[in-house]
Protein backbone atom coordinates (compact mmCIF):
# COMPACT_ATOMS: atom_id res chain seq x y z
CA UNK A 1 0.00 0.00 0.00
CA UNK A 2 1.42 3.32 -1.00
CA UNK A 3 1.59 5.79 1.89
CA UNK A 4 -0.38 8.82 0.79
CA UNK A 5 -0.92 12.14 2.50
CA UNK A 6 -3.52 10.58 4.81
CA UNK A 7 -1.05 8.05 6.19
CA UNK A 8 1.50 10.71 7.07
CA UNK A 9 -1.19 12.85 8.73
CA UNK A 10 -2.41 9.83 10.70
CA UNK A 11 1.12 9.07 11.91
CA UNK A 12 1.55 12.70 12.91
CA UNK A 13 -1.76 12.64 14.77
CA UNK A 14 -0.84 9.47 16.66
CA UNK A 15 2.53 10.93 17.72
CA UNK A 16 0.81 14.15 18.82
CA UNK A 17 -1.68 12.14 20.87
CA UNK A 18 1.09 10.20 22.58
CA UNK A 19 2.86 13.47 23.37
CA UNK A 20 -0.33 15.03 24.81
CA UNK A 21 -1.05 12.05 27.01
CA UNK A 22 2.59 12.05 28.12
CA UNK A 23 2.47 15.68 29.24
CA UNK A 24 -0.48 14.83 31.50
CA UNK A 25 0.99 11.64 32.90
CA UNK A 26 4.53 12.81 33.55
CA UNK A 27 5.50 14.45 36.81
CA UNK A 28 9.02 15.67 36.36
CA UNK A 29 9.65 18.82 34.38
CA UNK A 30 12.15 17.21 32.01
CA UNK A 31 9.72 14.45 31.09
CA UNK A 32 7.06 17.04 30.29
CA UNK A 33 9.56 18.99 28.23
CA UNK A 34 10.40 15.88 26.20
CA UNK A 35 6.73 15.20 25.51
CA UNK A 36 6.34 18.77 24.27
CA UNK A 37 9.27 18.19 21.92
CA UNK A 38 7.48 15.08 20.64
CA UNK A 39 4.38 17.17 19.90
CA UNK A 40 6.49 19.73 18.04
CA UNK A 41 8.00 16.96 15.95
CA UNK A 42 4.58 15.58 15.07
CA UNK A 43 3.66 19.03 13.76
CA UNK A 44 6.92 19.17 11.80
CA UNK A 45 5.95 15.91 10.12
CA UNK A 46 2.62 17.40 9.10
CA UNK A 47 4.33 20.41 7.57
CA UNK A 48 6.81 18.33 5.58
CA UNK A 49 4.06 16.00 4.34
CA UNK A 50 2.00 18.93 3.07
CA UNK A 51 5.09 20.50 1.55
CA UNK A 52 5.69 17.34 -0.46
CA UNK A 53 2.12 16.82 -1.60
CA UNK A 54 1.59 20.40 -2.71
CA UNK A 55 5.15 20.99 -4.00
CA UNK A 56 5.61 24.09 -1.86
CA UNK A 57 8.82 24.99 -0.04
CA UNK A 58 6.90 26.99 2.58
CA UNK A 59 6.28 23.87 4.65
CA UNK A 60 9.95 23.05 4.98
CA UNK A 61 10.85 26.66 5.74
CA UNK A 62 8.34 26.61 8.58
CA UNK A 63 9.83 23.36 9.88
CA UNK A 64 13.17 25.14 10.02
CA UNK A 65 11.61 27.95 12.09
CA UNK A 66 9.94 25.44 14.43
CA UNK A 67 13.26 23.65 14.96
CA UNK A 68 15.04 26.90 15.78
CA UNK A 69 12.34 27.90 18.24
CA UNK A 70 12.48 24.43 19.82
CA UNK A 71 16.24 24.77 20.23
CA UNK A 72 15.88 28.19 21.88
CA UNK A 73 13.10 26.83 24.12
CA UNK A 74 15.29 23.88 25.09
CA UNK A 75 18.18 26.10 26.10
CA UNK A 76 16.12 28.51 28.20
CA UNK A 77 13.75 25.86 29.60
CA UNK A 78 16.55 23.62 30.79
CA UNK A 79 18.28 26.64 32.28
CA UNK A 80 15.12 27.40 34.25
CA UNK A 81 14.88 23.78 35.38
CA UNK A 82 18.47 23.82 36.59
CA UNK A 83 17.97 27.13 38.41
CA UNK A 84 14.80 25.76 40.03
CA UNK A 85 16.60 22.57 41.01
CA UNK A 86 19.33 24.55 42.74
CA UNK A 87 16.79 26.10 45.07
CA UNK A 88 14.44 23.23 45.79
CA UNK A 89 16.46 20.05 45.03
CA UNK A 90 13.54 18.57 43.07
CA UNK A 91 12.27 18.77 39.50
CA UNK A 92 8.80 17.57 40.37
CA UNK A 93 6.39 20.19 39.00
CA UNK A 94 4.11 19.73 41.99
CA UNK A 95 6.85 21.32 44.09
CA UNK A 96 6.91 24.46 41.94
CA UNK A 97 3.96 25.93 43.83
CA UNK A 98 5.51 28.98 45.46
CA UNK A 99 3.21 31.36 43.59
CA UNK A 100 0.08 29.65 44.87
CA UNK A 101 -1.96 31.31 47.63
Amino acid at each position, binding site marked *: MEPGLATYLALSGVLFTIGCVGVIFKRNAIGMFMCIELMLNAVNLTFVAFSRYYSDTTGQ*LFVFMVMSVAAAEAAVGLGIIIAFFRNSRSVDVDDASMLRN
Partner: protein
Amino acid sequence: MVGNALFFVFAGLAIACAISMVYHRNPLYSAVSLVGVFIALSCIYVTLAAPFIAAVQILIYAGAIMVLVVFVIMLLNLDEDKPLTRLRYLYAIGAGLGVILLAQTFFIFYAVMRAPNVPVAEDQTAGRTIDIGRAMYSEYLLPVEIVGVLLMMAVIGGVILSRKLTQPQLELVVDNEMERRGEDH
Protein backbone atom coordinates in the same frame (compact mmCIF):
# COMPACT_ATOMS: atom_id res chain seq x y z
CA MET B 1 7.86 -0.85 -3.23
CA VAL B 2 10.81 -1.08 -0.90
CA GLY B 3 10.34 2.61 -0.11
CA ASN B 4 6.76 1.95 1.01
CA ALA B 5 7.77 -0.98 3.19
CA LEU B 6 10.55 1.11 4.72
CA PHE B 7 8.08 3.88 5.56
CA PHE B 8 5.96 1.46 7.59
CA VAL B 9 9.04 0.10 9.37
CA PHE B 10 10.13 3.60 10.41
CA ALA B 11 6.59 4.64 11.31
CA GLY B 12 6.27 1.60 13.57
CA LEU B 13 9.64 2.36 15.12
CA ALA B 14 8.62 5.98 15.78
CA ILE B 15 5.37 4.97 17.47
CA ALA B 16 7.08 2.24 19.53
CA CYS B 17 9.79 4.63 20.73
CA ALA B 18 7.18 7.30 21.53
CA ILE B 19 5.16 4.86 23.65
CA SER B 20 8.36 3.73 25.34
CA MET B 21 9.21 7.34 26.11
CA VAL B 22 5.88 7.94 27.84
CA TYR B 23 5.89 4.58 29.62
CA HIS B 24 9.33 4.71 31.28
CA ARG B 25 9.56 6.56 34.55
CA ASN B 26 13.35 6.78 34.48
CA PRO B 27 14.08 10.06 32.64
CA LEU B 28 17.23 8.72 31.01
CA TYR B 29 15.34 5.85 29.32
CA SER B 30 12.76 8.40 28.17
CA ALA B 31 15.49 10.57 26.69
CA VAL B 32 17.08 7.66 24.82
CA SER B 33 13.66 6.61 23.47
CA LEU B 34 13.05 10.16 22.28
CA VAL B 35 16.34 10.07 20.38
CA GLY B 36 15.02 6.93 18.70
CA VAL B 37 11.85 8.80 17.72
CA PHE B 38 13.90 11.61 16.21
CA ILE B 39 16.05 9.25 14.16
CA ALA B 40 12.97 7.40 12.90
CA LEU B 41 11.33 10.72 11.96
CA SER B 42 14.48 11.74 10.11
CA CYS B 43 14.24 8.56 8.01
CA ILE B 44 10.57 9.35 7.32
CA TYR B 45 11.56 12.81 6.10
CA VAL B 46 13.89 11.09 3.64
CA THR B 47 10.95 9.09 2.27
CA LEU B 48 9.16 12.44 1.88
CA ALA B 49 11.99 13.69 -0.39
CA ALA B 50 13.19 16.28 2.15
CA PRO B 51 16.89 15.43 2.60
CA PHE B 52 17.86 18.81 4.02
CA ILE B 53 15.22 18.69 6.75
CA ALA B 54 16.21 15.09 7.53
CA ALA B 55 19.89 16.00 8.00
CA VAL B 56 19.01 19.12 10.01
CA GLN B 57 16.66 17.06 12.23
CA ILE B 58 19.55 14.76 13.18
CA LEU B 59 21.94 17.67 13.63
CA ILE B 60 19.67 19.84 15.79
CA TYR B 61 17.24 17.54 17.59
CA ALA B 62 19.17 14.31 18.05
CA GLY B 63 22.60 15.87 18.11
CA ALA B 64 22.16 19.06 20.12
CA ILE B 65 18.84 19.38 21.98
CA MET B 66 18.78 15.81 23.28
CA VAL B 67 22.46 15.95 24.21
CA LEU B 68 21.56 18.98 26.33
CA VAL B 69 18.65 17.09 27.93
CA VAL B 70 20.86 14.05 28.65
CA PHE B 71 23.49 16.33 30.19
CA VAL B 72 20.90 17.94 32.46
CA ILE B 73 19.56 14.53 33.53
CA MET B 74 23.08 13.39 34.37
CA LEU B 75 24.06 16.59 36.19
CA LEU B 76 20.90 16.70 38.29
CA ASN B 77 21.12 12.95 39.00
CA LEU B 78 17.37 12.50 38.62
CA ASP B 79 15.57 9.56 40.13
CA GLU B 80 12.64 7.71 38.72
CA ASP B 81 9.27 9.37 38.61
CA LYS B 82 6.98 8.32 41.43
CA PRO B 83 3.37 7.40 40.60
CA LEU B 84 0.65 9.90 41.48
CA THR B 85 -0.62 9.88 45.06
CA ARG B 86 -3.03 12.78 44.81
CA LEU B 87 -4.98 14.11 41.83
CA ARG B 88 -5.57 10.54 40.71
CA TYR B 89 -8.28 11.70 38.33
CA LEU B 90 -5.49 12.97 36.06
CA TYR B 91 -5.01 9.41 34.79
CA ALA B 92 -8.64 9.32 33.68
CA ILE B 93 -8.41 12.77 32.08
CA GLY B 94 -5.28 11.73 30.24
CA ALA B 95 -6.84 8.55 28.93
CA GLY B 96 -10.00 10.40 27.87
CA LEU B 97 -7.99 13.07 26.06
CA GLY B 98 -6.00 10.36 24.33
CA VAL B 99 -9.15 8.64 23.12
CA ILE B 100 -10.60 11.92 21.82
CA LEU B 101 -7.41 12.85 19.97
CA LEU B 102 -7.12 9.40 18.44
CA ALA B 103 -10.71 9.59 17.26
CA GLN B 104 -9.92 12.96 15.64
CA THR B 105 -6.85 11.45 13.99
CA PHE B 106 -8.84 8.62 12.46
CA PHE B 107 -11.51 11.01 11.29
CA ILE B 108 -8.85 13.11 9.53
CA PHE B 109 -7.38 9.96 7.99
CA TYR B 110 -10.80 8.91 6.70
CA ALA B 111 -11.60 12.38 5.36
CA VAL B 112 -8.29 12.83 3.56
CA MET B 113 -8.53 9.35 2.05
CA ARG B 114 -11.91 10.26 0.60
CA ALA B 115 -10.69 13.58 -0.76
CA PRO B 116 -9.79 13.75 -4.46
CA ASN B 117 -6.24 12.54 -4.94
CA VAL B 118 -3.70 15.18 -5.92
CA PRO B 119 -1.04 13.42 -7.98
CA VAL B 120 2.49 14.23 -6.89
CA ALA B 121 4.88 15.19 -9.68
CA GLU B 122 7.71 12.69 -9.75
CA ASP B 123 10.39 15.31 -10.16
CA GLN B 124 9.07 17.88 -7.73
CA THR B 125 12.01 19.66 -6.21
CA ALA B 126 10.73 21.44 -3.14
CA GLY B 127 13.16 19.69 -0.83
CA ARG B 128 16.58 20.38 -2.25
CA THR B 129 18.96 22.51 -0.26
CA ILE B 130 19.28 25.10 -2.99
CA ASP B 131 15.52 25.64 -3.16
CA ILE B 132 15.27 26.03 0.59
CA GLY B 133 18.24 28.38 0.60
CA ARG B 134 16.79 30.56 -2.12
CA ALA B 135 13.42 30.75 -0.39
CA MET B 136 15.08 31.51 2.91
CA TYR B 137 16.94 34.52 1.65
CA SER B 138 14.39 35.99 -0.73
CA GLU B 139 10.82 35.43 0.32
CA TYR B 140 11.28 34.47 3.98
CA LEU B 141 14.14 36.76 4.93
CA LEU B 142 12.24 38.45 7.76
CA PRO B 143 11.38 35.23 9.65
CA VAL B 144 14.99 34.06 9.32
CA GLU B 145 16.31 37.29 10.81
CA ILE B 146 13.75 37.17 13.62
CA VAL B 147 14.79 33.61 14.39
CA GLY B 148 18.38 34.82 14.55
CA VAL B 149 17.46 37.44 17.13
CA LEU B 150 15.46 34.81 19.03
CA LEU B 151 18.45 32.48 19.21
CA MET B 152 20.63 35.35 20.42
CA MET B 153 18.06 36.03 23.18
CA ALA B 154 18.12 32.33 24.10
CA VAL B 155 21.91 32.33 24.38
CA ILE B 156 21.90 35.40 26.62
CA GLY B 157 19.05 33.97 28.70
CA GLY B 158 20.85 30.66 29.14
CA VAL B 159 24.03 32.35 30.28
CA ILE B 160 22.18 34.56 32.77
CA LEU B 161 20.10 31.72 34.19
CA SER B 162 23.08 29.53 34.91
CA ARG B 163 25.64 31.93 36.30
CA LYS B 164 26.66 31.84 39.91
CA LEU B 165 26.65 35.23 41.56
CA THR B 166 29.66 36.29 43.62
CA GLN B 167 28.96 37.62 47.11
CA PRO B 168 29.12 41.37 46.16
CA GLN B 169 26.84 40.73 43.16
CA LEU B 170 24.43 38.82 45.39
CA GLU B 171 24.26 41.69 47.86
CA LEU B 172 23.61 44.11 45.01
CA VAL B 173 20.72 42.00 43.69
CA VAL B 174 19.20 41.70 47.17
CA ASP B 175 19.54 45.47 47.75
CA ASN B 176 17.83 46.24 44.44
CA GLU B 177 14.97 43.89 45.22
CA MET B 178 14.47 45.33 48.70
CA GLU B 179 14.39 48.82 47.24
CA ARG B 180 11.87 47.77 44.64
CA ARG B 181 9.59 46.36 47.27
CA GLY B 182 9.94 49.49 49.38
CA GLU B 183 11.10 47.65 52.51
CA ASP B 184 13.90 48.39 54.90
CA HIS B 185 16.59 45.87 55.79
